[in-house]
């Protein structure tokens, strides 16, 4: 895991002393020394790295400087919120992208296509946090239909869960959806123009069958890729959206860890993101093979 060395090194490069930060501005040398010894930060860097990496291999990511909790439990605590938002966003994104992209590919240069293109351009260009603020203003403020933020577990309050999920999922979903729409459009277009589809059409197969079988399956490949990339992005925490909607996800955790110089938490979070990224790439590759038997990697 070359990543682990980089993670560790990068984190150590960040100036700022976590111990001073934990103590605030009122400074007392003895308290400082005691805390420093307890945190293990007085050890040489190499020693710190190997003890961290050694424990990380066994799944022990250490203990947060600030809260004294284990990093694994902190991450586990945030995971449900992050997973919920990521998958809800992907769902919203696909619900937007697949119909819109397919429609505009089937009728290129039509009104539908142009409207879809403009919409997806707008969706890509609008700053997420701005959209989030405006939504909160309208739906939580003026109309008062939805809570302005926060998170409750599905098991505790299903209605509250859905209400709170709606706005952040729409914001991130619209942005991801706009990206994916463009991919769906171009890959469906490409698939429509591909030789075997023309052949199929020439053979007189009914349009619908040609479409579902040949076109969609081929268009699925790039779709899987881009969805995977989007999912990895969403899972690594949409920091700004999480903050605006008070969504207790991993992005928030990581940002707080940077700010409080909570090295163990930061290392743990980045490591997790890197692993997620690799896993998703793996899954995408596997799906490729499953969808298109021609590909053998």
């Amino acid at each position, binding site marked *: 895991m070359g990543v682990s060395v980089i993670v560790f090194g990068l984190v150590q490069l960040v100036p700022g002393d976590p111990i*001073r930060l934990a103590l*605030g501005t009122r400074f007392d040398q*003895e308290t400082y020394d005691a805390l420093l010894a307890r945190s293990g930060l007085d050890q040489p860097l190499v020693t710190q790295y190997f003890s961290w990496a050694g424990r990380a291999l066994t799944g022990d990511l250490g203990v947060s400087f*600030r809260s004294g909790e284990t990093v694994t439990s902190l991450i586990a*605590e945030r995971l449900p919120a992050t997973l919920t938002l990521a998958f809800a966003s992907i769902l919203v994104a696909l619900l937007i992208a697949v119909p819109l992209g397919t429609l505009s590919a089937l009728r290129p240069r039509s009104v539908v296509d142009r409207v879809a293109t403009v919409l997806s351009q707008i969706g890509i260009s609008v700053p997420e946090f701005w959209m989030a603020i405006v939504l909160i203003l309208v739906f939580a*403020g003026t109309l008062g239909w939805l809570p302005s933020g926060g998170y409750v577990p599905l098991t505790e309050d299903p209605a509250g869960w859905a209400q709170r999920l709606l706005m952040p999922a729409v914001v991130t979903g619209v942005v991801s959806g706009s990206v994916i729409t463009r991919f769906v459009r171009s890959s469906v277009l490409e698939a429509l123009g591909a030789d075997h589809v023309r052949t199929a059409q020439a053979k007189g197969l009914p349009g619908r069958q040609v479409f579902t079988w040949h076109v969609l399956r081929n268009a699925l490949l790039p779709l899987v890729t881009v969805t995977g990339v989007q999912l990895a992005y969403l899972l690594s925490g949409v920091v*700004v959206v999480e903050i605006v909607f008070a969504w207790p996800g991993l992005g928030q*955790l990581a940002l707080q860890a940077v*700010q409080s110089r909570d090295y163990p938490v930061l290392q743990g979070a980045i490591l997790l993101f890197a692993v997620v990224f690799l896993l998703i790439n793996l899954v995408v590759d596997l799906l490729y093979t499953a969808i298109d038997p021609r590909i053998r990697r």
Partner: protein
Amino acid sequence: MRSNRLLPVLAAGALVLSACGGGGESVDTGAGGGGDGGGGGGDTLVAAVAAQPDQFDPHVTTAYPSFQVLENVYDTLVVPNAEDLTMEPSLAESWEPSEDQLTWTFTLREGVTFHDGSEFDSADVVYSYNRIIDEDLTNADRFANVAAVEAPDPQTVVIRLSQPTPNLLERIGAFKGMAILPENAAEDIDLTTEANGTGPFQLESSDASSTVLTAYADHWGGAPSVGGVEFRYITEPAAALTALQNGEVQWTDNVPPQQIESLGGDDTVELQTTPSVDYWYLSMNYGRPPFDNRDVRRAISFAIDREAVAEAAWFGAAQPNQTAIPEASSFYLDYAPFQPDPDQARQLLEQAGVQTPLTMGLMVTDQFPETVTAAQVIASQLEPVGIDVQIETLDFATWLDRQGAGDYDAFYLGWLGNLDPAAFYQDQHVTDGTNNYQGYSNPQVDQLLQAGAVEPDEAARKQLYDQAAQLIVDDVSYLYLYNPPVVQAWVPGLSGYQIRADKAVNFEAVELP
């Protein structure tokens, strides 16, 4: 001196640290309670707070969000009165200093139990204080004069001092950082995520979105009237206010300052403000010419319009002040030698032989958004007298590093939660004081502060600190700006809650409408 916790007054911006604490699993502290809003019967009060507690070990944490919770879970021997913040009995019913002021004897309250049902006695006090002292925990400096803590019998605690300490009560009772834990608590439970106190509520659970307390029926002061309290973290002030107006929460201290005025006339919300014991100041580095020059510092002090700075940061709700201690305190000193006077400022700069424009870096941190706002106003006020202010907004970790290294021209920050004048002035202004980052040294001030620290007579003590404060202000060791308000809002009809200048949030007596 609660100032160990230097905290978001207005924990607004996205960047406020709330750290990651919490405690994934629910924390069952044993006796009583259980279930959502169980406990004493009655409904749960939902309070919107700005940030998540970092952890629940009262002897370790420095974070205000943690103390908001801990205030309701733990007790101290003595506690500040809600009205004037003088010390009154809590776990100690009475106390008596010896003739020579070196031995204080505390008589403890009887019939107090911890949340797990065990009895409270003097051994718990000795354990708690020694834990802080022996492990050099966050508040160990409060015991600097303490030679020994003894328990001659279960109802008596004796504290032996190395020198007279007139503010001993404030030192052991100002806030829940001096909480009494049951003996061996650190071995028995995980104090970072669990709690076992003597307070009116027990810690039920805490996660990344809220902390839940349930009423402790066997509390020595009687069971609270609400069944529990849920502290819900809502970072955005506007969102917290909306939640209050929607009825999602019943209480919040996260009110946007710009709304204070308009909310006064809003009958869906009960809003109260009171001047806090916090203060904000600008400090210049004596190690960096020309800021070592008294005239230069005085010039800057004359150039700043404190009213305008306070107005910009707090929309008229803050109290401009040229000393540290707020008007409400019995140690307040009415002393305001600097009226905004750009001409005098220019003259002083000339007198100091300073080439204008003079560039001054001003270090602020986005952890406290009001410093960023106020710094911009100060920059615009100093520009006409020939000082070019370069604002540097840093994250707090970097900020502290540079403060510690003396790598700055000037910084802007606040001290929060001080009660005793020694806490307001001693460490910050005594020569080589632990928090005298600016490098101020005035033998006269040193003398006055040392005398004040051991003077048992309150009136004589105030005089000493008044004299010290005047010198500190005249020399511009700190350039004092204003005392911010405590701003809290709740639903109309909520009763039994009292807003406090020390920002302690206590729901013991609160009743829902």
